[in-house]
């Protein structure tokens, strides 16, 4: 297991190289001169040249990329063009907020989505099933930012129960996490239903019933346990959607996380910050996928990593 973990962590390296290459060349292909952007419209040619030398933009592209990678290894992502603070410092300040929001949302999604999918699968083509499947379909079709705004209209504007945005106590977390969880909950419920229906049709379920086991045991210990692999895969894959959704949710609720940081950086054309935050977001995504791989072994003892 440890050996597998080590190998899997090593496999991040080519992915990170790929991501850094993609980002580096994407940002270098921008129209206009970054030195000019940083110096501002009123800067003299000398000032622009000075910034160009400071940033190493006068060097060949491969030298620039090499410097970029070395700085990356030192966790030096440069300074924000907007605030002049180190990019990594700004990211560390925002990252815990995004992680908190995402973890609460994914836990909520699992707690609601898996039972909903199971109930739907054990009573297929009944009103419960139709209720779950149609709610889930609505969930995957709804724009996350619209749902967020509608929740604000109902729970903040009309009822006055919850704050419309910002941070503070746990009450500030309720609406953003429900908003963020909605899409993933719907997706997990759909996947759980499909996976459970398949699992319930298998011989081992018939055997378990024939042995006279209680229906609850048959469903949870036999059918659900075997249906979990595709469900976990979906949860892992949906984390990407969750991070994408976090960008929109944080904007709706003025939540001071990474998503909001990226949007603000894009609107201000703060390229060092865009580059750094996208890279950290990508890294987070890759690490989550590794975690999902490792979870398989706990759920399904048939999977061995040696």
């Amino acid at each position, binding site marked *: 297991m440890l050996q597998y973990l080590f190998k899997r962590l090593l496999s991040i390296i*080519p*992915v990170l190289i*790929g*991501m850094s*290459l*993609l*980002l580096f060349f*994407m*940002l270098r*292909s*921008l*129209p206009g001169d970054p030195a000019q952007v940083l110096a501002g419209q009123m800067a003299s040619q000398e000032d622009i040249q000075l910034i160009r030398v400071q940033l190493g933009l006068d060097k060949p592209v491969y030298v620039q990329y090499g410097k970029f990678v070395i700085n990356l290894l030192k966790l030096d992502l440069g300074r924000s063009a907007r605030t002049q603070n180190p990019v990594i410092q700004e990211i560390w300040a925002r990252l815990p907020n995004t992680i908190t929001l995402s973890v609460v949302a994914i836990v909520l999604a699992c707690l609601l989505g898996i039972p909903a999918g199971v109930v739907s699968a054990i009573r297929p083509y009944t009103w419960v099933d139709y209720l779950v499947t149609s709610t889930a*379909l*609505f969930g*995957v*079709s*709804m*724009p*996350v*930012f*619209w749902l967020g*705004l*509608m929740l*604000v*209209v109902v729970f903040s*504007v009309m009822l006055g129960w919850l704050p*419309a945005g910002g941070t503070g106590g746990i009450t500030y977390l309720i609406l953003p996490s429900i908003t963020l969880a909605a899409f993933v909950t719907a997706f997990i419920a759909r996947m759980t239903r*499909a996976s459970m*229906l*398949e699992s319930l*049709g298998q011989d081992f379920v018939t055997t378990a019933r024939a042995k006279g086991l209680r229906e609850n045991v048959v469903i949870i210990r036999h059918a659900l346990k075997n249906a979990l692999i595709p469900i976990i895969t979906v949860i892992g894959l949906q984390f*990407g*959607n969750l*991070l*994408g*959704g976090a*960008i*929109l949710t944080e*904007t*709706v609720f003025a939540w001071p996380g990474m998503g909001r940081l*990226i*949007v603000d950086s*894009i*609107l201000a*054309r703060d390229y060092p910050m*865009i580059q750094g935050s*996208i890279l950290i*977001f*990508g890294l987070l*995504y*890759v690490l989550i996928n590794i975690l999902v791989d490792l979870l398989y072994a706990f759920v399904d003892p048939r999977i061995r990593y040696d």
Partner: protein
Amino acid sequence: MTEPTFTQTPQPSLTPPAGPWRRRWSALKRNKAAMLGAILILVYVLTAAFAPLLSPGDPAAPDLMNSLEGPSAKHLLGTDQLGRSILARIIHGSQVSLLIAVGVIAVGLFIGVPVGLISGYYGGAVDFIIQRITDMFLAFPGFLLALALVAILGVGVTNVVISIGIYMIPLYIRLVRAQVLTVRGEIYVEAAKAVGTNDIKILYKHILPNVMVPIIVQTSLGMGMAILFAAGLGFLGVGVQPPQPEWGTMLGAGRSYIFNAPHVATFPGIAIFLVVLGFNLLGDGLRDALDPRVKV
């Protein structure tokens, strides 16, 4: 001499068996949810096609005296912060979102499908290189990649199409490649090779038709996703720019008035929801009707 007569044994009447596409069409027609999705899409496409005729007025004409008015007989869905008819803007906005969705799918199909075919069919080094490049793009969450690309390319319809389209390409590559791997060794492909058919013809005449089902399903679901992504970019202010009516941009502008005029953000959201729901219903129905493996 009389001519010999031949008595023919009566044969049971044989109607030719329905072709696979006809059978799939009948299965699709029986799926009520898919038909509801198709109706929603039809209404959406017709709205976009006849927008100038259906629109109650100019979607860009400001009328500051009547700004942020609620729904009324004069303005069925009310007016926005500049007094423009929200209904007129939603109707005209359908053109923009349809244009984006079709553009995104075209980028994904025209680049992703041929590259996926090549990657799966040839294998080896070609496949390895294509798959590593695909990995690079898929290492980012989809919406983040589209957002990063639009940040680089700039705002506007074309750049939104390119940004979301670039995200769609690796999805098609992966999908098509996986399908090609399952049919590459089939007898009909071997037979085509044996009679000297060239690779391009094998790919397009023998392999592509046999991997079409998941491509069709992905296209329906992809249209919905493209509309959601484009609306998300518009909402953040980096998508289609005002005064062009785009549903996400309208919703983003309506956010500032959520306390005193919630209808400004509500109606464009309902439009996005109904259209995406239509594509998802149809996509699910197509998957059930066309792909026998997912029948449960």
